[in-house]
């Protein structure tokens, strides 16, 4: 399976969760341990090795804060 990598521009995240809802690997979550300057818990991924690089998250992100790379 292809492996991917997602990067979030977290300071611009509004915590809307749309990316969370469309990730087939279910690895995106809102990081409740931190709050960005806008006051939201930003989206993040810790188990990056499970990312398949499908770009679903980036495609649905209304704020264009997600970059996706793939092998």
């Amino acid at each position, binding site marked *: 399976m292809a492996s991917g990598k997602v990067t979030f521009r977290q300071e611009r995240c509004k915590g809307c*969760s749309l990316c969370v809802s469309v990730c087939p690997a279910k690895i995106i979550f809102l990081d409740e341990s931190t709050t960005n300057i806008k006051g939201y818990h930003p989206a993040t991924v810790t188990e990056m090795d499970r990312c398949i690089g499908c770009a679903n998250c980036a495609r*649905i992100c*209304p704020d264009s804060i997600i970059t*996706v790379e793939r*092998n």
Partner: protein
Amino acid sequence: MAIVYQKSKGLTDVELHYCPGCTHGIVHKLVAETLEELDVLGNTIGVAPVGCSVFAYKYFNCDMHEAAHGRAPAVATGIKRVLPEHIVFTYQGDGDLAAIGTAEIVHAAMRGEKFTTIFINNAIYGMTGGQMAPTTLVGQRATTAPLGRDREHYGSPIRMSEMLATIDGAAYIERVTVTTPANIIKAKRAIKKAFQLQIAGKGFTMIEVLSTCPTNWGLTPVEALEWLNNNMVPAFPLGVFRDITAEEAK
């Protein structure tokens, strides 16, 4: 590793002011990506409406003109007639296009104005705080229809794509939505086709995008996508309502 998705060069670096999860932002991306892929950003003039997307003039990486409420099609007509070789688009909400600006959009379509309209149908007036729109569903609550839209009092929601598809000057009209990654890809294809037909000089093109307004619908962004699928799509069927190229191919 190769980049498979990143922010479009068709957008400026200005932060979007939309509410969290509002799909206005998704549609902005699709328009921006289309203009970037068609390599026409330097040759495009966009017309922003009055509505939540009033600040669209700060977001698109091309020249922009901000119109009065509902008048974007008239402004776009003025621009396109002066600059016929340029790409011109309007981006309008349902209050803008289907209420106060109905005459302007109908007559732009009638004249076959060669610009593309991106019509955001979110069944509500977002910017002014959730008042009833002409597209509000029967029974749907709004701040000016606190008990829900009453058919006796206000009639049923207006279907602009179907209506405009009866006009000869319209070259392409499709209704799409952006509720899933697959739907987003379809919506992008529709928007691209509309711009391509504009470039080919075929006539008026419009893509209606069923869009969410989580804030005024009183739902989370994810619930809003679901509500749209369950309630708006039945009232506003997706599909192509007019395609002059399909007719020409016959």
